[in-house]
């Protein structure tokens, strides 16, 4: 099974000749000048003011703190207002392993955040269970089983720069959203 899917992957890759943009861009209907400009303004505000929730379970949280520290300083992007309460946060950086017992808590935290909310899965553990994928009885194999994830950033743990890169990628995604226009 595994082999077959991989072979298909090889074929697909050969046909496409490599991807340039990660993910797919959704076409959004044009809403006229005013609506488009408003959208742009809102997206500009949102993308530049992502307030993360203080939520770290393990190792990746330390690199998240490093990113907040003086050397990497994510306040340059306006991310420094880390909120302890999910009600005021926009961005959930899932940093660290999520286990079965934590999963309902994570889901609840996500539900408590007001819209629009974004999720970054930081590190191998959150993307797929990482080092705890095999032989482990209590680890959730990827947080995307629990909550929708916008950006994945692999690494164990990723560098602070990689986290910043993920947040810039996140900003790019937000800038392509539409608030007043409905997607198809």
């Amino acid at each position, binding site marked *: 099974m595994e082999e077959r899917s991989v072979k298909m992957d090889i074929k697909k*890759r050969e046909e496409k000749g490599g991807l340039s943009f990660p993910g797919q861009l959704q076409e959004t209907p044009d809403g006229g000048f005013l609506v488009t400009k408003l959208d742009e303004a809102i997206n500009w505000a949102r993308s530049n003011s992502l307030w993360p929730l203080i939520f770290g379970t393990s190792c990746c949280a330390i690199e998240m703190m490093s990113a907040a520290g003086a050397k990497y300083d994510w306040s340059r992007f306006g991310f420094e207002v880390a909120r302890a309460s999910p009600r005021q946060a926009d961005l959930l950086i899932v940093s660290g392993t999520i286990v079965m017992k934590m999963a309902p808590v994570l889901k609840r935290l996500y539900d408590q955040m007001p819209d629009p909310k974004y999720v970054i899965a930081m590190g191998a553990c959150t993307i797929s269970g990482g080092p705890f994928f095999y032989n482990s009885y209590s680890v959730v194999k990827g947080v995307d089983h629990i909550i929708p994830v916008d950006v994945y950033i692999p690494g164990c743990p990723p560098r602070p720069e990689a986290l910043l890169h993920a947040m810039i990628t996140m900003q790019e995604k937000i800038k392509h959203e539409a608030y007043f226009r409905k997607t198809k």
Partner: protein
Amino acid sequence: MKLTGYYFTHLKEIVTEEYPENRSTLKMMDRFRGEVLIQHDEKNEHRCTGCQACEIACPNGTIKIITKQEIQADGKKKKRLEAFVYHLDMCTLCNLCIVSCPSDAIVMGQNFEHSVYDKKQLKKILNNPGSKLMEGVEE
């Protein structure tokens, strides 16, 4: 208060490195472990014999090596690498595969900007399409 006041007035003490702006000058340490790569030379040849030593050494099943039987010029059948599947989403960059590789085929890449919107893109096939084993590695 004296200390914070000192730093407030001495802006040259700021230690921040501006990441996206300094991308051109930003250089990782030469041993930095960013991702696993197979080295290819200009003739599109690599050194991986498909021996699966790295697959066995990997503690969390990140590497999957798929081999195929290939008939040599002298009529012997030989195992050859077809796909070196690498799950970057599970890799902990622990260096055990690099150490275990008998033919120095894989190295650690320095790239750390792996953010993607789709998890599937983190499953990679490391050998280039159409690449071949380098001459003389197996001996």
